[in-house]
């Protein structure tokens, strides 16, 4: 028998009792495309108080961003329309205002500032930063042009842009992504808003920059008592910053409450699933990730049933017979969840099937399958009328890597560190490089084109974006079967078909899906297709270039598990490239950290995470938030300054010298050589080689 939790208190009624800064009741938004109406937001209610940091968490398509845009009536109509709901900001009923009327405009930028996800496209490319920043200042503070300019300079300095006065006259493209997001922050706070809505403000940024921006936002809200609504899919960020959380799924809020309550006692199957699905930095490597099931294709869900029902592993008869569950209170104060099953029931169910939660990590490593020796990749910089090579941009500089047969070799680093360049060099997609790439004792870079094409079947690649890496016009079967045809691996039609079936089964897809076209698959399924295609030619080595970073968190676990299972089953070797240190830690045996084309540290997984030696590795690890508010509260945060700089401006000495807190003179002049510190732990740092210690994170 399942326990059904008490009675449902209408959520709106409870919320009306207190005066909140912003209160949203029963908001519904829908989009109409080709006569198909999609309900993006389905009757959600939430609030935010003065000075609070509240987070709305959800995966793509959950409606979390749309609901925020709806608050400011910024949804493009058509195709969108706000069907119902009230939005109250300090007594003012925003939903009654005309979208382009003067009252609404006063709210926008004045009372509510907004920061968007993409710093690259959110600023007008043809207007100077100054003019874009001046607009909200003049409109909302009534300052004259001159005063406003002063204010703009001060704002830019506040958000950490040096030399602000000069940079006002520059254009957005002259700023890096992080800088642009800082400018967005400045624009958002220009009108002294009561509330800042930040819609995935750091998703597009590197992890070290992400930490900087979030810290900046936090400090601004603390200083001005501004409330912050943080929309994100990253549970780590939520754990680190949010005081209260709303978890959204399919246009509805499925769980809400204080941050620590939710992380300590997740009460909705979806929240629980998410927390189990993501690898954590503080995880043990043996924990097997528990993915959230995904149906073949998330169908337009039944309007009458719990939207999570098709994916819920706790589902019972009740769920499929009753309507959509309301948010109901749980044990903690202010903690609500929309599920018929109480937390206790869920806990019990979990205990019953906790088998197979461990993975065997012992692998027999033998010889080296791939050796990269002193690989350097240069891209010419062409200048002048005759396009003479004015110089070269070194994307990868003297990199040596040895990958053992059967292991998973992790390659981590932020954007521009050269990790993908290495992958493409191995795959010979870039042929213009120095150094040796030796695969199975064959010098890949010395092979003739025809010989290389034959060797390609032994070394395959899985791409980052499952949407762009599959030809959208081909059927799944054609795509997966292509290597078989190219390398003539099968002789008969029946052999071809049966091999296809085998491959589909191997990656957990039904062979009956063979005839479907790529765009009919979901992201996770597409990535499975990509893997099946890579497997088709029986490769020895698979280069995985950020294979999960384009996927939703709930799906990532499936792919990670699949890759691990396949490795065990087929004895594959992986070169696993990623920027997410938690994922890399989870999957890799050996890890190399890169920065600006150089290897800064290489070590076996446990050694690296247990004893990071290079300041950059330390900073990286510190910047990764752990999805647990309790741990985050006690963690010391070393936020390194600056951002990943452009390769064009690589410092002369150690590539990290201009951001490193411990930089010495020698670091600026000479390139530190890699040095072994025992346990296969190699680090390139002068400070370390001089035997000096510095505090560790």
């Amino acid at each position, binding site marked *: 028998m399942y326990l059904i939790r008490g009675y449902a208190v209408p959520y709106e009624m409870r919320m009306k009792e207190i005066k909140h800064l912003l209160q949203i009741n029963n908001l519904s938004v829908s989009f109409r495309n*080709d006569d198909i109406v999609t309900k993006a937001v389905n009757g959600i209610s939430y609030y935010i108080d003065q000075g609070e940091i509240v987070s709305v968490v959800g995966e793509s398509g959950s409606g979390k961003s749309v609901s925020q845009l709806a608050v400011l009536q910024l949804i493009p109509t058509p195709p969108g329309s706000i069907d119902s709901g009230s939005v109250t900001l300090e007594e003012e009923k925003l939903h009654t205002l005309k979208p382009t009327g003067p009252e609404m405009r006063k709210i926008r930028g004045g009372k509510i500032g907004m920061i968007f996800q993409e710093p690259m496209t959110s600023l007008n490319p043809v207007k100077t930063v100054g003019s874009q920043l001046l607009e909200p200042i003049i409109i909302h503070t009534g300052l004259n042009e001159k005063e406003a300019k002063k204010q703009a300079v001060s704002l830019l300095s506040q958000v950490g842009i040096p030399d602000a006065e000069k940079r006002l006259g520059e254009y957005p493209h002259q700023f890096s992504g992080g800088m642009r997001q800082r400018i967005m922050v400045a624009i958002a706070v220009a009108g002294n808003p009561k509330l800042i809505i930040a819609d995935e403000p750091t998703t597009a940024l590197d992890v070290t920059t992400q930490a900087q921006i979030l810290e900046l936002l936090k400090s601004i809200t603390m200083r001005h008592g501004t409330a912050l609504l943080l929309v994100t899919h990253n549970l780590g960020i939520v754990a680190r910053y949010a005081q209260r959380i709303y978890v959204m799924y399919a246009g509805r809020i499925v769980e809400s409450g204080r941050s620590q309550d939710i992380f300590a006692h997740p009460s909705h199957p979806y929240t629980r699933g998410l927390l189990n699905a993501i690898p954590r930095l503080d995880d043990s490597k043996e924990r097997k990730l528990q993915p959230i099931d995904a149906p073949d294709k998330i169908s337009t869900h039944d309007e009458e049933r719990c939207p999570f029902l098709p994916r819920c592993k706790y589902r019972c008869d009740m769920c499929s017979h009753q309507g959509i569950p309301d948010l109901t209170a749980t044990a903690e104060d202010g903690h609500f969840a929309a599920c018929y099953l109480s937390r206790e029931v869920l806990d019990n169910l979990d205990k019953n099937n906790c088998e197979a939660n461990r993975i065997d990590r012992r692998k027999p490593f033998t010889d080296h399958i791939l050796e990269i020796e002193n690989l350097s990749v240069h891209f010419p910089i062409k200048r002048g009328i005759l396009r003479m090579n004015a110089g070269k941009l070194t994307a990868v500089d003297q990199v040596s890597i040895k990958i053992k047969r059967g292991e998973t070799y992790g390659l981590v680093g932020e954007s521009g560190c050269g990790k993908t360049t290495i992958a493409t060099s191995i795959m010979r997609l870039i042929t213009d490089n120095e150094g040796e790439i030796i695969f199975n004792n064959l010098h890949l870079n010395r092979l003739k084109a025809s010989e290389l*094409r034959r060797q390609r*079947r032994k070394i395959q690649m899985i*791409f980052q974006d499952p949407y762009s*890496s599959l030809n*959208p016009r*081909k059927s799944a079967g054609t795509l997966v079967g292509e290597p078989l045809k190219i390398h003539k691996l099968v002789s008969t039609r029946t052999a071809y078909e049966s091999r296809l079936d085998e491959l589909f089964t191997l990656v957990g897809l039904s062979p009956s899906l063979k005839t479907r076209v790529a765009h009919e698959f979901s992201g996770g399924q597409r990535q499975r297709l*990509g893997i099946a295609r890579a497997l088709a030619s029986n490769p020895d080595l698979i280069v995985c270039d950020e294979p999960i970073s384009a996927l939703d968190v709930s799906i990532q676990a499936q792919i990670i598990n699949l890759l691990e299972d396949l490795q065990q089953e087929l004895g594959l070797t992986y070169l696993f490239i990623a920027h997410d240190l938690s994922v890399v830690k989870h999957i890799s045996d050996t890890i190399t950290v890169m920065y600006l084309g150089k290897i800064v540290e290489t070590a076996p997984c446990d050694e690296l995470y247990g004893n990071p030696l290079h300041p950059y590795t330390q900073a990286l690890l510190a910047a990764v938030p752990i999805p647990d508010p309790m741990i985050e509260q006690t963690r010391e945060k070393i936020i390194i300054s600056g951002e990943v700089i452009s390769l064009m401006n690589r410092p002369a000495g150690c590539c990290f010298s201009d951001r490193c807190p411990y930089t010495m003179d020698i670091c600026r002049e000479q390139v530190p050589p890699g040095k072994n510190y025992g346990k296969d732990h190699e680090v390139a740092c002068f400070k370390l080689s001089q035997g000096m210690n510095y505090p560790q994170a």
Partner: protein
Amino acid sequence: MKSSGTKPSTSKIRKFFKRLFARKIVIFGAVLVVVFVLAALLAPYISPHDPYKQNLKLSFAKPSAQHVLGNDELGRDIFSRIIYGARTSLAIGFVAVMIAAGCGILLGLVAGYLGGMVNSVISRVMDALMSIPAIMLSLGLGIIFGAGMTSLMIILGLATVPTYTRLMSAQVLAIRNSDFINAERVLGASNIRIMFSHILPNCLSPIIVLFTMNIGGTILAEASLSFLGLGVKAPMASWGAMVNEGYSRLITNPVFALAPGICIMLLVLGFNILGDGLRDVLDPRLRGSI
């Protein structure tokens, strides 16, 4: 919309047409095109007179019950000639654009995929072609190739090649380094296979749109060339040539000049609207650029 290995289901086709004809104006465009295509196909059955039968006594006769739009200089029935003119216009429009698309796609594919020197050479030659006024190019080529249907198709086709080459090479450049093409290289696929089996099908949407639009444009160009006297060979009927014959008689016999002119406009309008509609369905991002 077709994909090798799978047959598009009938519902998919229905959906395509439903989206295409969602805007009423597109139906109008399609009807125009269909009417003219039917007229062209059924010309021998629906034209009231022999379009080539001359009767000098009826030279420039005004419209009558027998000859609803009157007669031309040779006393031939204008209405019948307009119906036959649809054949000429459509055939030239279609074949010329086929030639242009064929050459342009091939050149664009090669230029875009191989890049480097090949791309530079092809681009510059196309730039050069583009910087010569269309009328000059057609006139020059027309005089070199001589008159007639075939040479008209070639001339008009050649003059349109740069448009396709540019569009195609831009398309190819955009997807040449995309992941799915890299994926093919990684699999060991040859360049030819990649170009024709993977890149080409993914560039077709804008080409189809451009194709439709260009048929209209070419019909217009054919009219202009006929107007210049470089049209189809006599006694074949062509709207452009008919406007040419008729326009100086606007005062005395306006129907003669107006009727073929209006036909040109309607047919071109039909193709343009249809092209607009196709673009909205196939490749909305192209809006305005074609």
